[in-house]
């Protein structure tokens, strides 16, 4: 019996298995294949992700739990899996040239990326707080290492260490929260938890409330909500840019996937309590992220603060705890992944060896020198600022309309005002690129991206995909909203 159950359960985690298998193969290929570029590793990683993607798409629409209710597969988890795997695939294309330029150990890099993705998939399909924790660690530990892979630059290991220490704290908070919740509710299973909470009584238990609070702190850290954002700018700045790109979209989306699963869905009866907390966190996150981004000189740091602000917009959508809100959050995360990944892609393209060339002023006049990069950067910046007809506008439109619908009008007003503030720093990049005269490079020209054979190819593919998708979603968001609707059908009592 047990064996049969377990074997049946394996069907639920097909994408995860494919990724884990590819990761192992990747490590073996790294050991036995003497190609200095490790192109086989790249290929294996790509095949693994494409395989997982295919499995996810094939599993769309199926609802099933496995491993004695520890994991569940439904459209919600599949939607997030799509985000993770698509961003993983695009990151892979971005990374090829970058890894070669920076001489990062490719075997480690690609296998860690796969393991990390595997952890994310587990997070999205978690049906139990234990799975959440295991998935979270499986995702986080590879990201800690990835942040420090740029060994030639001191800032990279520094970022990794900071991330590890603060991340360990956050994990401890999360674990402590799980323990307290278990103590109060007597279960770690999410549906069971929902039942307990619906039964009443738990809302008044101090132990349970403390547990939920700790959980929120741990989750807030992963999605970098203010005031748990302190690590974000330093880590984003220090980590290799391709890793930053991946972190800023996939890790954040993974954090939101469990935030929604645990708080919005499982603690739904307590919505009146946590939506007040969400309100405050959303405002603090949007205000701090946008205002501090105004004065950043380093584009990676600027995008780090901007990613904090975007977490705030997602939280605006989640604050009412309604079905439309969750849908808006899914739509937002999807569009955000495309535009932010694209923006980092341009940063990679315009950077120099050693991850240099990321000061905004170094972009002076680059639109004239590289008109295509200038153009796609303009698309991403306008999209991040939420100007139509780009996808970013659609995301904000859904997020704010979810808030207005539930009566959170002032929250929406603060949100739009902060978007107006954000336009300033996004525009600044364009001002520098388009309107400043190019400055003569003082130092000798170092190894540029375009000098590597074939390196621009992968990069171009991912930039092209991101640009086209951002523009297409800005004009025709219909299919995405329908998929998002399917992802949340039946999860929430509809409004």
């Amino acid at each position: 019996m047990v064996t049969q159950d377990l074997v049946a359960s394996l069907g639920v985690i097909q994408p995860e298995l494919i990724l884990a298998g590819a990761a192992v193969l990747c490590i073996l290929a790294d050991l036995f294949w003497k190609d200095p570029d490790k192109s086989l590793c790249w290929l294996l990683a790509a095949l693994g992700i494409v395989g997982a993607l295919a499995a996810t798409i094939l599993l769309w629409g199926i609802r099933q739990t496995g491993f004695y209710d520890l994991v569940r597969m439904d459209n919600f988890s599949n939607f997030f899996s799509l985000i993770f795997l698509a961003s993983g695939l695009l990151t892979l294309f971005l990374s090829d040239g970058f890894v070669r330029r920076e001489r990062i150990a490719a075997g480690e890099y690609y296998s860690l990326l796969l393991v990390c993705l595997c952890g994310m998939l587990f997070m999205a399909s978690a049906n139990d707080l234990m799975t959440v924790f295991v998935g979270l660690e499986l995702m986080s530990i590879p990201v800690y290492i990835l942040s420090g892979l740029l060994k030639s630059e001191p800032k990279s290991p520094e970022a990794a260490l900071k991330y590890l220490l603060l991340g360990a704290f956050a994990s401890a908070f999360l674990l402590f929260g799980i323990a307290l919740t278990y103590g109060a509710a007597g279960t770690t299973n999410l549906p069971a938890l929902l039942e307990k909470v619906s039964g009443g009584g738990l809302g008044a238990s101090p132990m349970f409330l403390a547990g939920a609070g700790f959980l929120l702190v741990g989750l807030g850290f992963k999605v970098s909500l203010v005031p748990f954002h302190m690590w974000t700018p330093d880590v984003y700045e220090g980590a290799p840019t391709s890793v930053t790109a991946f972190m800023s979209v996939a890790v954040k989306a993974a954090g939101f996937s469990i935030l929604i699963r645990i708080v919005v869905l499982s603690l739904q009866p307590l919505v009146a309590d946590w939506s007040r907390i969400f309100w405050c966190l959303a405002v603090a996150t949007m205000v701090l992220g946008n205002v501090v981004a105004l004065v950043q000189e380093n584009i990676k740091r600027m995008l780090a603060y901007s990613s904090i602000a975007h977490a705030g917009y997602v939280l605006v959508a989640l604050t009412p705890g309604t079905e439309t809100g969750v849908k808006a959050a899914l739509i937002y995360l999807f569009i955000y992944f495309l535009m932010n990944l694209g923006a980092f892609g341009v940063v990679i393209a315009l950077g120099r060896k050693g991850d240099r060339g990321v000061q905004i002023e170094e972009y002076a006049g680059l639109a004239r020198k590289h008109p295509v990069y200038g153009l796609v950067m303009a698309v991403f910046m306008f999209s991040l600022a939420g100007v139509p007809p780009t996808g970013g506008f659609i995301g904000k439109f859904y997020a704010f309309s979810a808030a207005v619908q539930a009566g959170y009008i002032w929250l929406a007003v603060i949100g739009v005002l902060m978007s107006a503030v954000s336009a300033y720093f996004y525009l600044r990049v364009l001002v520098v690129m388009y309107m400043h005269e190019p400055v003569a490079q003082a130092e000798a020209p170092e190894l540029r991206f375009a000098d590597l054979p074939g390196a621009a190819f992968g990069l171009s593919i991912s930039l092209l995909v991101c640009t086209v998708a951002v523009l297409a979603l800005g004009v025709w968001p219909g299919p995405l909203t329908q998929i998002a609707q399917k992802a949340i059908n039946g999860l929430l009592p509809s409004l």
Partner: protein
Amino acid sequence: MEFLNEHLLSILIFLPLAGAFFLFLFVGKTAEEAIRKITFVVMLAGFALSLKLYFDYDASSGQTMQFLETAPWLPEYGIEYKIGLDGMSLLLFLLTTFLGPIVILSSWRSVETRVKEYHICMLLLQTAMLGAFAALNLFLFYIFWEAMLIPMYFIIGVWGGPRRIYAAVKFFLYTLMGSLLMLVAILYLYFQHHAQFGTYSFDLFDLYKVQLALWPERLVFLAFGLSFAIKVPMFPFHTWLPDAHVEAPTAGSVILAGVLLKMGTYGFLRFSMPLFPQAAETYYPLIAVLALIGIVYGALVSMVQPDLKKLVAYSSVSHLGFVMLGLSVRNVPGVEGSVIQMVNHGLSTGALFLLVGMIYDRRHTRLIADFGGLSKVMPVYAAFFMVITLSSVGLPGLNGFVGEFLILLGTFKRNPAFAAVAASGVIFAAVYLLWMFKRAMFGPLTNEKNRSLADLSAREIATLVPIVVLVVWIGVYPQTFLRKMDRSVEAFLARTERIEPMAFELASEVAAPAEEAPTQPDERGP
């Protein structure tokens, strides 16, 4: 042919976009002359086609909204592609297509860097502006409205004057701030519509039926109003305008003054006032007084400007004050005068910017003090300048008079004191414009550098002649244009007078389509 007839409006809106794609994909960036020609031909074709709109528009029909086109877009959210024109937007639409080829012609020689990008921006801007005038779904309108900012931002910021970056960013942020608040207001209205009628719709004519409580209506009106008031610009939200105008390249200034500013007044006309009639009535004194302050303040500030372009820029504040005054009184002469004044301002001020640009191209200065006696070396230039100046002053027989007269008439009916103050603006206009004209054109030719200036080229004359023709036409026989909008103005007024006792029981009964609010069957499309 049938396709053309059915989709004429869409074709006109997206023709420039298609042109932009064509330039982007198929034309090399070094083929500058070809780029200019293609753009010009696209714009000219747009204008020629748009004339068909004028002839096809049936002003006697009870259905004022014509050329309607709808297509589903996001049906579950009530978002659809819905466009159409009534008599008022028809004129503004035509003004836009008319100015299109002129601005391209005007920048033929003055834009020499990044020619391809410049023309692509111009074409994109044209599509966004035309779309905003035609959109009848608030979501669609918002998309076009915001999309306008992007090309204009680049036009000012890349091809502008020395302080262009400051001006471009200020322009962008100012207008974005206003429109984002409007977005929240639109969403509020949208959900109120759902609460009252049980369906989701961004359709303008559905939203006209929404009844709001007193304070929400006022707040929503202010949110819309702020967005439009910034665009107009009304005093005290005008500070972005002189910067943007002065730094923008000539063509940018022409489009900015000619069309973009009208977006603000058009917004009041199409959205703020008919959507929120009670609030429009409540805030009528506020709008009128701000308009009056704008009229007088703009004129006084113009008077002391040493820079020709700044003078014209501030005169816009004054002229747009007239438009807002005419709208705020909401009677037939006032509104008709406002609409015709929008067109007039587009023509006269657009032409003034063209003229300033022409002299700037020659002398690379715009300071009035650097000129004097220009009429001796550039008689043709001076003649054109004279006609346009007089048109802007409001000389009877030229277009400016018609608009200002109607507005003053309408204002007098409502409040004679307001009309008296506004009339002073006409006198001030004569002072600052004629004084400027005297200093620049007449008197001794003191500055040696001006002695060898070439008079207007054939291309420059070609840009000005069509404008002068229209200036005289509107001045002599405004009926050609006024009769197109009589019915539409009446429909507008009927809507803004819909000041009913607050029927908020409606809001509480979420029940299915509550009693049909008084519909204007004439506006409901075929």
